[in-house]
């Protein structure tokens, strides 16, 4: 049968972040005619890198997890033979939890981590072993118990020491932008399992290497990738999505997959008139996650220690307070932070969570933030200021400009219970043939989270006929 009266595509994916790329690869490999439209001039969303004065900086995502055998990224690499294109190195320890008094490394070998914990918190070391074992062997029972808990409830079930609890919760705060008392236990547990217990992986050459390899493979499977191509509308007729409008032209497709900001998808691309009142009301009341301020430093000499490890510095244990102060962040209240020495030992990426604010705030404050942030980093690296050759930063507005994530949100919607697992943000019941994937679909975040969603979205469209690798 000719395609003459058929839509031009089987699927159009809006946004070439990791979820869109993974989804596109599965669909194209299965023989579907797929188009990915990306507004930016390079693929990857938050998973990309840029070059300045000879330094390669990762823009936002700076390592990934879920690469152990049968982990979601491992599966993606196997299914698309990406190991032939990229070399992955695992940095060990993946994460270092640092306070003014204590230091705990999270090693790839949990036994080694337990010994680290024993040195500072002897009474909690074995408990950590039990905690890890529960996370690594999740049963339906433990999931069932956890479904209404916060991550704080989960930590309280195991640990007694408040300092250790805060140290273990701090990377969850960093990777989820919520304190343990607010983030759903289920999401906190996923971050802990996928980012920390199986984290520290890095594509040789920079994070963009992974996005680029996925984009190339997608094209090799016959997919079309259009860069610098914003989608203006998702065309809806009688409750059915018919295609998208690019450069004033309707391009028809059997399915449209939005791997972009959910507010933009529903309010500007689909249009409010196609939304049930109740859903529009819900959408307007959803809370996005905080954004971030990212500092990039090029250094004058290679440093010897901790290359490739995420260093999480917490000056105090009140994560609740950290969250509230992050939401009102000024250059005068930078305290906690994450810093990472690049695997090539030449540069540093550091970030704190920050609110969106307005353009003039960041015009007036960006330089002050940079200087104040560098001063705070000297708590971990005393002579840092003398070794900086190049400094630059991304504000929440930069995050928004490159990805169009609402208010520069780092992780989609906040992962609080009331905003999770909402089917209307995955397959809206009121719009046939539209799916959402990625971190705005209320079901997961981070590279492993969105890669799983990309796989699951493709599997759904293909009626689960994805052949095992």
């Amino acid at each position, binding site marked *: 049968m000719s395609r003459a009266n058929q839509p031009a595509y089987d699927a159009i994916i809006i946004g070439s972040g990791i979820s869109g790329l993974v989804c596109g690869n599965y669909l194209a490999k299965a023989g579907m005619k797929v188009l990915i439209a990306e507004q930016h001039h390079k693929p990857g969303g938050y998973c990309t890198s840029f070059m300045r004065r000879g330094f390669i900086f990762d823009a936002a995502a700076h390592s990934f997890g879920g690469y152990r055998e049968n982990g979601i990224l491992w599966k993606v690499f196997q299914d698309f033979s990406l190991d032939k294109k990229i070399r992955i190195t695992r940095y060990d320890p993946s994460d270092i939890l640092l306070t003014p008094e204590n230091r705990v490394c999270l090693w790839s070998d949990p036994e080694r981590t337990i010994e680290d914990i024993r040195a500072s918190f002897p009474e909690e070391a074995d408990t950590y072993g039990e905690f890890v074992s529960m996370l690594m062997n999740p049963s*339906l029972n433990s999931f069932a118990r956890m479904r209404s808990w916060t991550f704080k409830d989960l930590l309280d079930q195991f640990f007694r020491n408040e300092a250790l609890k805060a140290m273990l919760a701090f990377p969850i705060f960093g990777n989820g932008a919520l304190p343990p008392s607010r983030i759903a236990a289920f999401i906190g547990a996923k971050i802990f399992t996928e980012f920390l217990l199986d984290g520290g992986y890095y594509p040789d050459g920079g994070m963009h290497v992974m996005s680029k390899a996925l984009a190339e493979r997608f094209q090799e499977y016959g997919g079309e990738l259009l860069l610098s191509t914003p989608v203006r509308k998702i065309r809806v007729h009688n409750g059915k999505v018919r295609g998208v409008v690019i450069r004033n032209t309707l391009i028809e497709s059997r399915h449209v997959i939005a791997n972009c900001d959910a507010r933009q998808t529903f309010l500007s691309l689909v249009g409010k008139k196609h939304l049930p009142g109740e859903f529009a009301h819900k959408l307007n009341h959803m809370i996005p996650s905080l954004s971030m301020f990212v500092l990039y430093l090029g250094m004058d000499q290679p440093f010897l220690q901790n290359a490739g490890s995420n260093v999480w510095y917490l000056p105090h244990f009140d994560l609740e307070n950290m969250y509230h102060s992050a939401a009102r962040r000024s250059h005068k209240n930078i305290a906690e932070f994450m810093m990472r020495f690049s695997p090539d030992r030449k540069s540093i990426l550091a970030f704190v969570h920050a609110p969106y604010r307005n353009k003039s705030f960041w015009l007036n404050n960006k330089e002050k933030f940079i200087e104040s942030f560098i001063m705070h980093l000297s708590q971990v690296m005393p002579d840092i200021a003398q070794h900086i050759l190049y400094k630059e930063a991304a504000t929440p507005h930069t995050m928004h400009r490159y990805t169009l994530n609402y208010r520069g949100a780092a992780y989609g919607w906040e992962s609080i219970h009331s905003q999770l*697992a909402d*089917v209307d943000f995955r*397959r809206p019941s009121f719009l046939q043939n539209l799916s959402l994937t990625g971190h705005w679909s209320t079901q997961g975040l981070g590279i492993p989270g969105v890669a799983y969603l990309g796989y699951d979205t493709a599997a759904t469209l293909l*009626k*689960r006929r994805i052949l095992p690798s």
Partner: protein
Amino acid sequence: MSENTIETEVISIIADVSGFETEEINPDSKLADDLEIDSIKAIEIVVALEKKYKISVRDEDVPKITTVRETTELVSRLLKQEKMAHVPS
């Protein structure tokens, strides 16, 4: 609410979460084997049912639901208990 209505609604929720069409799902469908519902999706279904019917599934009952029929029966039973609890004595 009739058992049939509940069954239709439960199937619709399972369809949304699993990605299978409602026509492909019948009361005897096994959640794990036929509908590829893993533990994460199983919890999503339970949470969706709890939100929709304003019921509370006991933790120990979650692993006992293995088919669509068992899911429907559990919802009906909890709704009946709910109703009994609200009958004035």
